[in-house]
């Protein structure tokens, strides 16, 4: 098949609690929060002050070092509070909605004559630029740079991930319009990744500025990083932009209507929920409004993750949906001792290794809790990362180079090609329980600060 990427290394973690194919309408959230920490490396600078009235699309804060990057309100209401943490770091902007639904109005861009400058200024002014992510580093893109290409994956292979094929077919017009808006950003192509038997792909085949690819294989096959690595790996000095499918919908919607469109559909998943499904909501909505009293157990015994279980954020029952998370996942907390747990045959324990008998049942699903299942050790076992990492890099050597803070080695070993989500499975399978994502972020931050 033309443009097909077949991934061999990887792992599908088979959890209970996949989202049922029902879309619920939006339920009002009593508060919304914008969390700057959803974007690595972002320092926010408030523009609106507590007490200010906000419309949908009103400016709330900007990037302190790049004030043209604006973050706007997903709802109309009042900025209740700017919550600060240690060293007065801004943790979140808390908004209490009203029911006026007043909306800021933007000039609609003309996609036929759109220049790069117009595209950038439209996305920045509308508050949509933060959704454009840049690789290397996995940070908000720099509006001044021109990427060699743009990648979007319409195939999420993460545990319990939403099925874009199921609900995005209703948003084709918006998506195509959105692609036309971001088209001038790059001199290269826009690459789109789809599942092998995708129905969505048909709608994009006619666009000459777009290249479509199909993907098959276990997670992280659908990660945008995997697609980049297989098609056109990032070299030192090169930049690639990535977006999430629903960001394109947002961009298209905003450009078509002239009004900021924060709406998205997220999958509500996890073994601890009575009902799973898809919910219409907007970024920053409270977890409570998404769950709607849906948690089966005592909330203290359940961890609620905004995002998937590999890369998401532990936001808790009182938290808020993150900017970039297309799902929330409720899994059991594992704060309990298990006597001789490491000696048992383990028919119900999930492991990528064959050290528990459960591997004899490849179809079985699991209810996995958050227990670390062991203690932190030096790296001992070798070859296990390679089994779940489809990239042409040596993860263990890269991680060691980062721990040693050896920037030359990090570059040589391909740190520019990966961000946390790409190595999240290595962290999952690690016998020594190494904090790979945190280490990788340290390395990326270190290189980024050295470069600037």
């Amino acid at each position, binding site marked *: 098949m033309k443009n097909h990427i077949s991934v061999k290394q990887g792992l599908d973690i088979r959890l209970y609690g996949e989202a049922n194919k029902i879309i619920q309408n939006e339920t009002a959230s009593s508060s919304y929060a914008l969390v700057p920490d959803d974007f690595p490396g972002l320092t926010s600078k408030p523009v609106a002050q507590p007490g200010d009235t906000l419309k949908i699309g009103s400016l709330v804060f900007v990037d302190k070092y790049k004030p043209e990057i604006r973050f706007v309100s997903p709802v109309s209401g009042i900025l209740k509070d700017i919550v600060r943490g240690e060293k007065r770091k801004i943790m979140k902007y808390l908004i209490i909605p009203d029911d006026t639904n007043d909306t800021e109005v933007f000039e609609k861009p003309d996609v036929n004559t759109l220049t790069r400058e117009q595209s950038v200024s439209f996305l920045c002014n509308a508050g949509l630029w933060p959704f454009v992510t840049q690789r290397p580093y996995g940070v908000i893109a720099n509006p001044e740079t021109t990427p060699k290409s743009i990648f979007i994956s319409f195939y999420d292979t993460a545990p319990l991930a939403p099925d874009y094929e199921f609900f995005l077919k209703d948003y084709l017009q918006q998506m195509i319009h959105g692609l036309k808006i971001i088209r001038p950003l790059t001199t290269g192509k826009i690459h789109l990744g789809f599942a092998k038997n995708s129905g969505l792909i048909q709608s994009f085949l006619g666009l000459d500025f777009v290249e479509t690819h199909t993907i098959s294989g276990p997670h992280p096959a659908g990660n945008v990083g995997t697609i980049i690595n297989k098609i056109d*790996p990032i*070299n*030192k*000095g090169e930049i690639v932009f990535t977006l999430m499918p629903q960001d394109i919908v947002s961009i298209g919607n905003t450009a078509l209507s002239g009004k900021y469109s924060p709406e998205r559909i997220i999958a509500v998943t996890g073994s601890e929920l009575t009902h799973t499904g898809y919910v219409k909501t907007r970024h920053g909505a409270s977890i409570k409004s998404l769950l709607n009293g849906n948690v089966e157990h005592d909330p203290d015994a359940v961890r609620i*993750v905004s995002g998937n*279980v*590999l*890369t*998401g954020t*532990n936001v808790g029952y009182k938290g808020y949906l993150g900017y970039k998370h297309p799902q929330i*996942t409720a*899994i059991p907390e*594992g*704060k*309990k*001792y*298990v*006597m*001789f747990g*490491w*000696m048992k045959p383990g028919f119900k324990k999930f*492991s*990528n*290794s*064959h*050290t*528990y008998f*459960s591997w004899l049942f490849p179809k079985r699903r699991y209810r996995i*809790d*958050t*227990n670390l*299942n*062991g*203690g*932190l*050790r*030096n790296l*001992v*076992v*070798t*070859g296990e990362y*390679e089994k779940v990492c489809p990239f*042409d*890099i*040596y993860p*263990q050597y890269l991680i060691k180079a980062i721990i040693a803070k050896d920037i030359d080695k990090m570059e*040589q*070993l*391909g740190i520019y090609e990966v961000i946390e989500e790409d190595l*999240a499975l290595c*962290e*999952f*399978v*690690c*016998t*020594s*329980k190494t*904090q790979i*994502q*945190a280490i990788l972020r340290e390395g990326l931050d270190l290189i980024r600060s050295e470069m600037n």
Partner: protein
Amino acid sequence: MKSVRKLLDKAKPNFESGGKLYFLHSFFDAMETFLFVPDKVTEKGAHIRDAIDMKRTMILVVVALMPAFLFGVWNTGFQFYFSRGIDAGFWQIVGYGLKMVIPLYLVSYGVGVGVEVIVAQIRKHEVNEGVFVTSFLIPLLLPADIPLWMLAVATAFAVLIGKEIFGGTGMNIMNPALLARAFLFFAYPAWMSGDKVWVSGLTQGEGVVDGFTGATPLAQAAAGSPHFTDGLGNTLSTMDLFIGAIPGSIGETSKLAILLGAALLLFAGIASWRVMFSMLIGGMSVGILMNVLGNTPYMQIPFYDHLLIGSFLFGMVFMATDPVTAAQTNTGKFIYGFLIGVMIMVIRVLNPAYPEGTMLAILLMNVFAPLIDHYVVQANISKRLKRFKQIKA
């Protein structure tokens, strides 16, 4: 179960920082985590983790060693009574074997785990499970009559100098268990080589059947003997060598027991099939080459017999596959294993000074493993660099 947990919870504060038994906290922690998988939950990164941990990995290696250990116990007793011409019953044989082997284990575990706990305490890390495998392996590599004090010194040397000074399990360059054997081999050669040490009780000489020889098949091969015999001169069949009721180190003689262990390690995916496979290929190809070109009797023994004599298989399954000291890249593992196989045969057959090459070959390649990996990783780096230059051009 609950009561044990309660007891631990009650005792725990004493062992924590500031408690009066703080100097034992590593030991307490080791005991606690031995009994219970801790209640630690994920804080950063992935919210769920694989069920595997170091304890699981290491216990499976110990389980895989069990057949070799059990056979070794029996064989120690069997060789003893055979050398004396006594027709002993099964339990009598096992009884003698246990009498000889259990003290070795008490010493290797006492010293090995002792050193590990003390170092963990000083360096403030958790007790690493690797030492349980090392301590289990060391006696299996030795003759049953080895004096206990020698074993104690060798074990301490292996754990301390071989591992801890590099930073503990995961940081060491050479396989600690093999290092213990090498230490004894060079420090006390009289106890580690010759025709007498491989059968328990033979060195004392009393009561031994007249004309009995304790020469191992390996020594016979080195002496140019065309076929293998037991101590009384009866020919040993291939099956005899495979089952392993022959003189030798405690754990190395039974190929059957070793292969059972290998099956478990490969089934569980703990030992690298790449290392085992390439080592087999390496050894056998040199064996075939010697068969073709050979002009000495030793070079002409069939290549497959090399698997049945000496410790080729034991080294292949349990020593070369140690993930820390082997090559770490998949390509590197092939090269590493292959070269070990080649080196064993070269040392064994072509070098007159050492009858067995497994220990030295593996230790040598342990030292070279980082170099092999370096070139494998460098190839990846060069590929990336080439891509980068193409873009620039």
